[in-house]
């Protein structure tokens, strides 16, 4: 007679073991998924994309006033270009960040969460680019190949204009400062002139090169006239 009870025990053990393992892995994966989904997105909300899609879905009846208020293609194209320009910024950021982030992750300077967030952002931006290319081709055949070239130039142009503006914005402050300083120098100069005219002429006035002066002083204490002469001679010699 088979001892059923002694057979049941190992089977029950196995069932419980496998069951608990399965439950654990299931829970673990579910938790990880939900955690990954709850991770903060890498990029802030894509404003340009939202505008474009809102315009696309703008219902003529809602905009009121009746009439043919369907959003014209030209506006949509402009909105799509703006969207592509923002995408360029994001693509560049993702490209630059990837190697740096990889090495930091290896060294333990950043956490795994950040890497997950980054991977998600990378995937999203790829989807986004495909989407923009498809939309562009819908407006004008072949535009999909061009739109990112155009967007790239637009991004670069915007950047350089911003730099020029920033630098040119300093002009007024710089000018003010220089006027102030010039006034200060002139005042000093006038004062010096005053003092000079009051003082006796015996003091040799300092000219240009300090080396020249040193030579002059060393040359003994001749009169002012002689000094003038020697100065002239020197100049001739130089030329």
């Amino acid at each position, binding site marked *: 007679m088979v001892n059923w009870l002694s057979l049941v025990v190992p089977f029950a053990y196995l069932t419980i073991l496998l069951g608990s393992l399965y439950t654990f892995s299931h829970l673990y994966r579910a938790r990880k998924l939900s955690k990954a989904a709850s991770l903060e997105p890498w990029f802030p909300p894509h404003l340009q994309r939202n505008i474009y899609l809102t315009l696309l879905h703008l219902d003529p009846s809602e905009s009121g006033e009746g009439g043919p208020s369907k959003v*014209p293609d030209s506006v949509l*194209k402009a909105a799509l270009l*703006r969207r592509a320009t923002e995408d360029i910024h994001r693509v560049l950021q993702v490209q630059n960040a990837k190697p740096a982030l990889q090495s930091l992750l290896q060294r333990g300077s950043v956490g795994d969460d950040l890497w997950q967030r980054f991977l998600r952002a990378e995937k999203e931006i790829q989807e986004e680019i495909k989407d923009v290319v498809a939309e562009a081709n819908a407006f004008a055949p072949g535009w999909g190949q061009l739109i990112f070239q155009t967007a790239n130039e637009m991004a670069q142009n915007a950047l*350089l204009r911003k730099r020029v503006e920033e630098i040119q914005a300093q002009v007024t402050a710089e000018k003010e400062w220089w006027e102030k300083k010039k006034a200060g120098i002139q005042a000093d100069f006038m004062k010096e002139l005053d003092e000079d005219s009051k003082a006796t002429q015996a003091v040799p006035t300092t000219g240009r090169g300090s080396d020249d002066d040193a030579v002059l002083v060393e040359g003994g204490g001749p009169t002012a006239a002689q000094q003038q002469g020697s100065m002239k001679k020197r100049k001739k010699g130089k030329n």
Partner: protein
Amino acid sequence: MAAEAETFTLLPLHLDPSTKAVSSSSSTTTSAALTTELTALNLLHRSLLSLDTPNGVPPPPVPVNPKRSAQIGKLRETGNTSFRKGAHADAIRMYSLGIDMALGRPGWEPSGLVREEVSGLYANRAQAHMALQQWAEGAVDAECSVEMKRVGNAKGWWRRGRCLFEMGRLEEAREWVGQALEFEAGEQDLVGLMREVEAALERRARQ
């Protein structure tokens, strides 16, 4: 992920039926970012409308529309002529017009070209300012020129250095010219200016 690609945040937008300008329909909840973005969008829209391409999309960056380039070139030539004649104020005006025109190129035209044009024009304007002893303006223009084109722009580097030197900003001049020499090693003008700056600094230290 595919589902996400289809979702977006609906924004309270409004399209003016006559001007086709996009604006935010709720004035209270509009963020500053949205307002600036919409301004940029409307601006871009207007420049798109003036396009004469058949399908209404911007042309590829190259080839460039030669009309504008020619105009800018002409303005620069006029400026140069005035400068040579000694009419520095006229020259500055011409260069300024040229700068505005170059910066006014539509965004999809090649940025490298804009840099090249703007850099040259700012360098020339700086020279004109220097001729009028307007060192502050000259310094800023030369800095712009260098910012647009760092390598192969010894003139731009030198002009700002000179302006700083003339204003007595010797430490700044030394740093600037030192930086210039990193890009344009061995450029005689820059080396000479550096020597002058050093000498002036030494003189000042001795006083």
